[in-house]
């Protein structure tokens, strides 16, 4: 325990330098901004900011990018409550009761409850990250290639099962992503493969252009199609403090939401989105009068908002401890670490303790900043929300182009982004989720490498994947997950949970 306290103290020492505090604040503020703005998410923004982080020391860069992710969870609720549009996909369920509260003249308390709940969740999940990373690092240290292979497979299956949309199509998207990740030079043989004669692909398809195309460009086209009417913020925010009655109702929901979020964040495939949905569903289950939900129930704001923040933060655990990104945002964080020459995985904690503990400490500080600055700044966010989308999309578009170009200083990446923008838009049209693809894309090379090494060890026999108990357990869990979710009853429940929570 004292070791943990010592480590945390060391982390605060790193995070409290003026430079790191500044970048934590910038990250948190930018995160809130993209959270507030519908049609611009953390994935596209982190991708856009990657070039900006080149000139920073790695610790400052990662602190800023982390702040962006949890900042977005704070910002998303503001838009959801005030204009009934999810500023962030993880705030979809907050719209339901949050906006009803606003229409009943309780916008202020809804915002305050969302912020306070998020802050509580942020504190708890920071502690969870600090507590759980260390033992996980120890476990991961004993993993061998087949075990990593099993874990990767399980992670992808869990991601598909816990996400929205058709499972078969999502599995196909993961596999397609795995393949796209293998394009370029094969690490083992040095042979260039599947480039279709395009020289720019010899080093592989870049992660940033793919992510920005699928999440940035495709989303711009889809948003323009929906028509960007200026969101109306009709309600005046009167009082910003919840009543005693509201606080009494919200408190247990915050605790439950935090618990669910912390748990689902750690799972491979978890993160903010699924946490919010699950927390809302649970509140409806345990409520004495479920009929209040949808009519402005305080718990319907408190639980999902706490959960998405907790889930956002604990999803750093698999990345920091094992080097495995559980969701697209963490995949980008992995990309950012690689750019700065850090190999994510169990070694980060021992080799770069400043980075590891500094980032954890910065999460708590960032949450505190968000709580303090956000409520007074709501007026500004509302003003920004009034910027018409027909101006905004050009700005996003240009920043995507410049951002993609600066990663490798090549216009070929800009064109690749365009191609994946088109592909992403078509995928939205045929109802395929792009998130599993990007996850597979990141994990593809890792999966192949561990598969290859396992087969070297076993002299070509596939049975090694069943003989190693850890790997066999992961594979069995994967099969179980798929079977369970394909059972009609549970499947209906899953669809319902995603429809409106």
């Amino acid at each position, binding site marked *: 325990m004292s070791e943990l306290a010592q480590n945390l103290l060391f982390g605060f020492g790193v995070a409290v330098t003026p430079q790191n505090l500044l970048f934590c604040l910038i990250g948190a503020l930018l995160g809130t901004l993209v959270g507030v703005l519908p049609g611009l998410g953390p994935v596209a923004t982190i991708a856009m900011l990657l*070039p*900006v982080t*080149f*000139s920073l020391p790695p610790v400052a860069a990662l602190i800023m990018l982390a702040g962006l992710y949890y900042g977005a969870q704070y910002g998303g609720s503001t838009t959801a409550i005030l204009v009934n549009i999810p500023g962030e996909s993880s705030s979809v369920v907050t719209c339901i009761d949050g906006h009803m509260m606003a229409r009943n003249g309780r916008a202020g308390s809804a915002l305050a409850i969302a912020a306070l709940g998020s802050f509580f969740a942020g504190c708890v999940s920071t502690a969870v990250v600090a507590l759980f990373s260390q033992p996980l690092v120890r476990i991961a240290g004993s993993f061998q290639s087949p075990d990593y292979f099993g874990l990767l497979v399980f992670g992808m299956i869990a991601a598909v099962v816990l996400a929205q949309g*058709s499972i*078969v*199509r999502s599995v*196909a998207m993961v*596999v*397609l992503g*795995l*393949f796209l990740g*293998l394009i370029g030079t*094969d690490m*083992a*043989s040095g*042979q260039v*493969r*599947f480039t*279709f004669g395009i020289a720019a692909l010899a080093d592989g398809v870049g992660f940033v252009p793919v992510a920005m195309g699928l999440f940035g*460009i495709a989303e*711009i*086209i*889809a948003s*323009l*199609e929906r028509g*960007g009417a200026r969101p109306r913020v009709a309600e005046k925010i009167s009082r910003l403090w919840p009543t005693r009655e509201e606080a009494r109702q919200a408190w247990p929901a915050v605790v439950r939401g935090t618990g669910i979020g912390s748990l689902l964040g750690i799972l491979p495939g978890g993160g903010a989105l699924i946490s919010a949905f699950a927390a809302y569903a649970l509140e409806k289950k345990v409520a004495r009068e479920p009929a209040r939900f949808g009519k402005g129930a305080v718990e319907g704001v408190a639980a999902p908002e706490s959960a998405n923040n907790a889930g956002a933060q604990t999803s750093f655990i698999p990345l920091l401890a094992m080097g495995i990104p559980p969701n697209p945002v963490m995949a980008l964080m992995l990309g950012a670490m690689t750019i700065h020459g850090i190999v994510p995985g169990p070694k980060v904690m021992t080799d770069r303790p400043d980075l590891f503990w500094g980032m954890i400490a910065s999460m708590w500080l960032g949450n505190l900043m968000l709580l303090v600055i956000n409520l007074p700044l709501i007026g500004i966010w509302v003003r920004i929300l009034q910027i018409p*989308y*027909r*101006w905004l*999309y*050009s*700005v996003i*578009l*240009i920043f995507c*182009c*410049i951002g993609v*170009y*600066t990663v490798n200083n090549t*216009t070929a990446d*800009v*064109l690749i*982004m*365009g191609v994946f*923008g088109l592909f992403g*838009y078509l995928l939205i*049209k*045929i*109802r*395929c989720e792009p998130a599993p693809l990007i996850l597979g894309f990141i994990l593809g090379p890792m*999966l*192949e490498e561990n*598969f*290859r090494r396992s*087969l*070297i060890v*076993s*002299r*070509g*026999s596939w049975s090694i994947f069943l003989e190693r108990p850890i790997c066999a357990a992961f594979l069995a869990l994967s099969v179980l997950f798929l079977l369970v979710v394909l059972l009609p009853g549970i499947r209906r429940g899953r669809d319902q949970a995603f429809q409106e929570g």
Partner: protein
Amino acid sequence: MEPRRWPRVRRADLWSGALFAALGAVVLWTGTNYSQGVPSRIGPGYVPRLLGFLIGGLGLFLLARAWWATEEIDASLAWRPLIFVLGSILAFALVFQATGLVPAILASVAVANSAAPENRWTTAIGLAAILAFFAWALFVKGLGLPLPVWLR
């Protein structure tokens, strides 16, 4: 297409199935160029072939499922934003390749502006000027990235 005569044409599984089946075929076809290796030392074509079978197989399964799964897609494309957004990316890449950041931004905003029908040409001029200035101030002056501003 007539929904009554072709009730299955709009099914989501039909389109995704066709896509994945085709992609699987492409992967397997191109994959024949690469060595499989032996199981204890797999070659560069080994894992891609496994993935190709999986993609194609899932595609075929989806095609089959399209017979009874009724989920539908909205069979329309938003051509205007699609063309102008992609066109603006193309414009950025080409102009930037030939000149520098500022002309690329001007060209790209000029094309992107038409993606939203209610935008006027005055919007484009205003946005392009502001964006060109900000991009220059942030990326070139502020962050010191080595980007050509006017000409390379």
